[in-house]
């Protein structure tokens, strides 16, 4: 098996989109509010059939999930700070390694202990994965999207879903 993977890597064949393993059950048990969503291609296609193309938000979601294979979201809110540790996030971060994965944006504040990172998985100039990891004192969020993703559509999310649109810098 290992030799087959090495052979495929050697000839430049990319393996199919692999969703991240989000093993955060320890935190989920301690969360006061939690969102745990895992959708595969079949469920996304089913959802797409029920999304209304005439509604701005639903049309945006429909467009985004077109090429997606899996969509996973974990959002945990805690009543007290200090529930999550860096070790919890390391399990996710360790999967987001080069050469396929690269960190697009990273932000951390020593003042309030907030961190936020966006990773992309690019294979032959195609974006095949996005991971968003944000951690605040009492909240932790991990978003993993695997499949063909239109980055422009993703950035267009602001301005929809009740989120104010951020102005883009003119180049």
């Amino acid at each position, binding site marked *: 098996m290992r030799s087959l993977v090495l052979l495929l890597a050697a000839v430049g064949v990319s393996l199919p989109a692999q969703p991240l393993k989000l093993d955060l059950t320890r935190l989920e048990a301690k969360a006061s509010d939690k969102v745990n*969503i895992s959708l595969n291609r079949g469920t996304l296609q089913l959802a797409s059939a029920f999304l209304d193309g005439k509604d701005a938000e639903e049309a945006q979601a429909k467009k985004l999930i077109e090429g997606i294979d899996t969509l996973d979201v974990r959002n945990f809110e805690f009543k007290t700070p200090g529930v999550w540790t860096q070790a919890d996030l390391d399990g996710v971060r360790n999967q987001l390694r080069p050469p396929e994965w690269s960190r697009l944006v990273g932000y951390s504040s020593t003042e309030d202990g907030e961190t*936020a990172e966006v990773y992309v998985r690019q294979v032959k100039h195609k974006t095949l994965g996005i991971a*968003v990891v944000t951690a605040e004192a009492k909240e932790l969020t991990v*978003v993993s999207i695997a499949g063909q993703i239109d980055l422009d559509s993703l950035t267009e999310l602001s301005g929809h879903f009740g*989120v104010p649109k951020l102005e883009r810098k003119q180049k």
Partner: protein
Amino acid sequence: MDWLEQELQQALARKEPRPDFAERVRRAARRRAPRASRWMATAATLVIASGAGIAYREHQGRVAKEQVMTAMRITAVKLTEIQARVKEVRP
């Protein structure tokens, strides 16, 4: 006894059925009524099952749609927060 009484007596006199009468009745009953009711039951089961299947699929679709919308909402909020933070640091 007048002629009318005689006629009635003859008409209403007990007659033994043919020896295969019971078997013929059983065969006829087996042939008609149960088959019809069996078809009706099968048709009703199919209608109920397909109706339940469609309703379940509809329910699954609506749940999946809600999950997609929730996932997109969370992603949108988080990406916008990150964009705003980065803008603060690098205006």
